[in-house]
């Protein structure tokens, strides 16, 4: 396969990726700044009915996503220095990215103590870049990782 053909295949793959949808938080932020007239009460109610729960959902997701350091992230399980190879080249991690691509609410579950908890699953691809100290050569390792969070429901 020729070079231009390979690149047009890559171009086609890139075009298959669709950008993530802008959040309701952004849309309502722009609305606040551009719609200065006092809006019709019914349309405000209708808009709020969609935007507020969505914004609350995003806030909860961000809050739950924040304590990533407490979870067994990939970079914590890798040693600071890899095993020396036969030619004594030592590779060290220089960059780690945990890419969150999906977050889902899986419903209420009953905990062993009889309480109730919300079950959330966060799906990541963790990519670690390693670099050889001598040759400066790099390689990347990507692994999928799921985090399951249980959030106690304390009552309403």
């Amino acid at each position, binding site marked *: 396969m020729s070079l231009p053909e390979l690149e047009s295949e890559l171009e086609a793959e890139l075009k298959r990726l669709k950008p993530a*949808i802008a959040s309701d938080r*952004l849309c309502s932020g722009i609305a606040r700044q551009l719609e200065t007239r006092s809006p019709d009460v019914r349309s405000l109610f209708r808009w709020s009915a969609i935007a507020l729960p969505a914004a609350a959902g995003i806030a909860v997701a961000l809050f739950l996503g924040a304590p990533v350091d407490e979870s067994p992230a990939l970079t914590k399980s890798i040693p600071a220095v890899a095993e020396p190879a036969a030619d004594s080249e030592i590779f060290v991690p220089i960059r780690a990215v945990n890419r969150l691509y999906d977050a889902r609410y899986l419903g209420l579950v009953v905990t062993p103590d009889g309480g109730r908890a919300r079950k959330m699953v966060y799906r990541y691809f963790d990519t670690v870049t390693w670099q050889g100290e001598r040759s400066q050569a790099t390689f990347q390792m990507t692994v999928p990782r799921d985090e399951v969070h249980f959030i106690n429901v304390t009552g309403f």
Partner: protein
Amino acid sequence: MDPHRNGTWRSWFETYGSRLVLYARQWTGCPSDAEDLVQEAFVRFWKSGARALAQPEIALYASIRRAGLDSLRKSRRRVAREQKSQVGQDVILSAFRSGLESREQCAAIETALDDLPREQREVVVLKIWGELTFEKIAATLEIPANTAASRYRYALSAMRKNLRPDVIA
């Protein structure tokens, strides 16, 4: 962009919102920062009346770019203060929704895109997802069209080298 010339800001935003956020992410690692940047730039664009121009998308993307460059200058100062560890561990919300059968494939492409120099990456984003011609990209970035085209070719070539063959196949 003609169908939207007389449209409301919402109709514009429905069409361009996700593309603008993707473009804004070239300057910010954090999706919520990118959305703040889009909000600032979009409101400025809309109030300026630039949508009446012959090629309003150039003004729209240029507005995002100016806000992005300002944000980058500020964040460089902040990062310099906050840089503590040798290995940075970032949590990044994927910039794309599911469009590929394999999530791994999507992650590999996204990482390859992230690894491009910024000036090449922004041309790729404007060309592929902004659907701009090289002439419009050139006007947005204030560079010659030939430079835009060559940056695009260099970027695709670099990405192809960094991706495993099965990711592209």
